[in-house]
């Protein structure tokens, strides 16, 4: 055997290369490596399966939009609005992410105790109930109040709360002021709920209510948009102001005097019915020239507007405030209510009309409904924050001031955020899509309606229906009520009462939209509701409206007092409905609040360029913003659409809170809000300096 020469090696190598190229090796390797580079090992690959579509109700705010959820293999993957729903279709970005909430990082699945930093420690349900019962007994002993804050009154569970509170010596059932505040002022006088006959309204005069952004049932407004003339009186160019037929930029806090000035013109020019003598006297103090500097509007503009309201009637004037800015002061609402009275809008078609109520479905005595503002400060020994979201901001200090020393705060929310973050105990109710939900009419609705949706997902094992919590609390505290019965049974009882009343129509959800149907019995009615149907009352209640209360003399004097020149700026706080409430935003909402410029982020404070220039502040720089209630850092955003002499800041949501869960410092206008005794925070003023 001769040794291998270089030549042999080269030829052998050549043969090897040729052979390799003729074998599958290189080609398979290339193909496989190509597939290998396409692997996404760290990424979730969702499981495929059968698709189903089910109707649900949105729980992010009281609008209760009807939604359709598409599930694959039992997992919800897509949510859309039920466009043809008889109560109004549509959905907002918050509703479209409803299916994320059960999976949200802030979701609580077991009862927990929260420490001062909001860090949760798991507790047994029995221990939580015992603690709450102890506080309830202590309250009874010491004559302190047991307060339930219900941000979505009118539900079956609301009734259970009121039954319990009626059995407690000093039980208070409170609801925060909301977008129906003007109507509430008038309903107080009417002795029953009122709604707006928007279908026949010609002009809607909104004192800062976000009527085109998320107000009432959005679907109803969208359907009426082309027929309705919207005049927006707003301190900033809100989304509604930008889309309205007319936007008058007013000074913050001037809603009350402006409403009176409009009434003054109407009465003075004989365009409206002549009011009672005491109102005439009041109106005399608010001629347009007097209000001009208060509202920052020329007197001529006020006069022109007043004339157009009369000429293009029926006109409805509404207040109610912004979900992030909080309610208007009661006296401002009274002034707006009086404007409605002067316009003759109360009780007429296209105006404010009476709405029926749901038939009674129980006999147990109920604690009366009170406004949260009326609850005395420092008097509450046990506070229960009911699950259910108004979609509106409520600063903690509005509640905190009501608490007595050693008060216990129990929240029934499934999310560790908003007010719940300040609770001592959380007994989480089922997350959205995990329980039966009711759809009740919104504040603007002029017809009563009712709908129920069935759970789409099984509730997690340790979530507790509020009804069950109440039953256990009553048992532990030795109270007889609320009567037993699960949440679903209570809803069924309600449905049975509606069916028994023989009022209204039943609309059933079918493949080709909704159609009217007469269910054979209460069971069939319940089934139709669960399958996406709804009940709509047919009769509008007829009710005479007495005169609402006049704005208080103190408030009137305050409006007329000349404001001294100040260096700090009024803060306009705002948020979309559902953005600053007790339901956390889905992380996907970063698409609107972080990844695009569509919505201002809580991390910025807006000033008119001229206001910024006067103060030597530079666009885009970090600012230190200080109010009497707090301080925070925010980036300056010069916005030429914001009128000079004020600052504007979002109250929520804060998508960054999702990235830095542990110790995220509070951002946004709510951290700055100075809450007045009437629980408004619209008077907040801020000083801005470069950080």
């Amino acid at each position: 055997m001769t040794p291998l020469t270089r030549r042999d090696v080269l030829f052998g190598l050549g043969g090897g290369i040729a052979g390799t190229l003729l074998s599958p090796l290189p080609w398979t390797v290339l193909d496989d490596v190509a597939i290998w580079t396409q692997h996404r090992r760290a990424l979730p690959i969702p499981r495929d399966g059968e698709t189903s579509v089910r109707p649900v109700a949105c729980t992010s705010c009281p609008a209760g939009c009807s939604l359709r959820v598409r599930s694959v293999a039992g997992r919800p993957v897509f949510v859309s609005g039920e466009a043809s729903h008889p109560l109004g279709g549509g959905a907002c970005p918050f509703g479209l992410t409803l299916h994320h909430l059960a999976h949200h990082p802030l979701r609580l699945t077991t009862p927990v105790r929260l420490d001062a930093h909001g860090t949760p420690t798991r507790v047994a349900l029995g221990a939580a109930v015992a603690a709450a019962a102890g506080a309830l007994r202590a309250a009874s002993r010491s004559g302190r109040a047991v307060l339930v804050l219900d941000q979505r009154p009118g539900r079956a569970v609301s009734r259970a709360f009121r039954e319990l509170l009626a059995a407690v010596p000093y039980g208070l059932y409170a609801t925060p002021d909301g977008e129906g505040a003007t109507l509430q002022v008038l309903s107080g006088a009417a002795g029953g709920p009122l709604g707006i006959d928007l279908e026949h309204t010609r002009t809607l005069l909104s004192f800062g209510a976000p009527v085109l952004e998320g107000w009432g049932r959005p679907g109803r407004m969208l359907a009426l948009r082309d027929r309705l003339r919207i005049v927006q009186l707003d301190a900033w160019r809100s989304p509604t102001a930008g889309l309205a037929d007319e936007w008058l930029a007013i000074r913050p806090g001037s809603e009350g005097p402006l409403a009176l000035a409009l009434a003054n013109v109407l009465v003075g020019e004989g365009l409206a019915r002549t009011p009672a003598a005491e109102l005439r006297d009041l109106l005399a103090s608010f001629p347009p020239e007097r209000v001009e500097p208060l509202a920052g509007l020329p007197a001529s503009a006020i006069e022109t507007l007043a004339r157009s309201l009369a000429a293009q009637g029926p006109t409805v004037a509404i207040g109610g405030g912004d979900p992030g800015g909080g309610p208007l002061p009661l006296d401002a609402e009274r002034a707006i209510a009086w404007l409605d009275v002067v316009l003759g809008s109360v009780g007429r078609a296209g105006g404010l009309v009476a709405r029926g109520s749901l038939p009674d479905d129980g006999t147990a005595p109920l604690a009366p409904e009170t406004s949260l503002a009326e609850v005395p400060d420092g008097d509450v020994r046990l506070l229960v924050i009911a699950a259910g979201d108004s979609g509106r901001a409520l600063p903690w200090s509005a509640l905190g001031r009501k608490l007595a020393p050693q008060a216990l705060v129990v929240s029934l929310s499934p999310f560790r955020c908003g007010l719940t973050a300040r609770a001592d105990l959380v007994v989480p109710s089922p997350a959205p899509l995990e329980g039966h939900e009711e759809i009740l009419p919104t504040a603007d609705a002029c017809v009563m309606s009712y709908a129920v949706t069935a759970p789409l997902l099984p509730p997690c094992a340790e979530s507790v229906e509020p009804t069950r919590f109440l039953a256990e609390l009553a048992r532990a505290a030795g109270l007889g009520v609320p009567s037993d019965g699960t949440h679903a049974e209570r809803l069924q009882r309600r449905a049975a009462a509606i069916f028994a009343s023989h009022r209204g129509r039943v609309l059933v959800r079918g493949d080709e939209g909704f159609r009217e149907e007469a269910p054979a019995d209460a069971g069939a009615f319940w089934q139709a509701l669960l399958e996406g149907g709804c009940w709509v009352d047919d009769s509008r209640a007829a009710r005479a409206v007495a005169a609402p209360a006049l704005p208080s003399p103190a408030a009137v004097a305050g409006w007329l007092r000349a404001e001294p020149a100040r260096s700090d700026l009024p803060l306009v706080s705002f948020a979309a409905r559902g953005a600053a409430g007790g339901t956390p935003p889905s992380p996907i909402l970063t698409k609107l609040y972080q990844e695009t410029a569509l919505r201002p982020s809580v991390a910025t404070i807006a000033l008119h360029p001229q206001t910024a220039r006067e103060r030597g502040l530079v666009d885009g720089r970090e600012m230190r913003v200080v109010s009497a209630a707090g301080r925070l850092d925010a980036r300056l955003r010069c916005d030429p659409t914001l009128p000079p002499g004020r600052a504007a800041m979002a109250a929520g949501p804060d998508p960054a809170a999702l990235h830095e869960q542990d110790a995220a410092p509070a951002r946004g206008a709510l951290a700055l809000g100075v809450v007045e005794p009437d629980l408004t925070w619209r008077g907040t003023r801020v000083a801005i300096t470069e950080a």
Partner: protein
Amino acid sequence: MNRRSLAAFATGLAGALAAGWLAFPRWLYVSADQPLPFNHRLHTSDATGFACTDCHAIRADGEFAGIPSMATCATCHAEPVGTTAGEKRLVEEFVRPGREIPWRVYSRQPDNVRFPHAAHVQGAQLACESCHGAHGTRETLVAFQEDRLSGYARGLITMDRCESCHRETGRGPLACIGCHR
């Protein structure tokens, strides 16, 4: 070129061919057993009389339901049918505890590929066998071989075959997004 060089070349060629055709596949593919034996022939025989689509159904929306869930098996196999060890294990390990059988799927495609069975079976009238082979007549399951690099089964249909068929028949999409997503 002399004879010696030729021999060297031939040796190299032969070695590489052997490596490429014989050794390489041995290294590349890892065999794995199916969790249970399954006799397709028995199920599709005249006595039982199932068609492929009785178990591997196409749903109303045209999507393929894939390998049937355990519930489908349980309709017949709630109790052991016969006395084989596999039958016993099926009932004890899967049917009674309600566990899904972790079958290894020969035709699992990457998740960015979409294969609409309705368009091929109902639209183009292709027989199941034309892609899946004569699975339905086998008494035992073929050994499952996983490609170490790609992570998919050996012999998985690749895009070349999709494309050539779509091109030849003039039917079916040729654009990427016709099938990829």
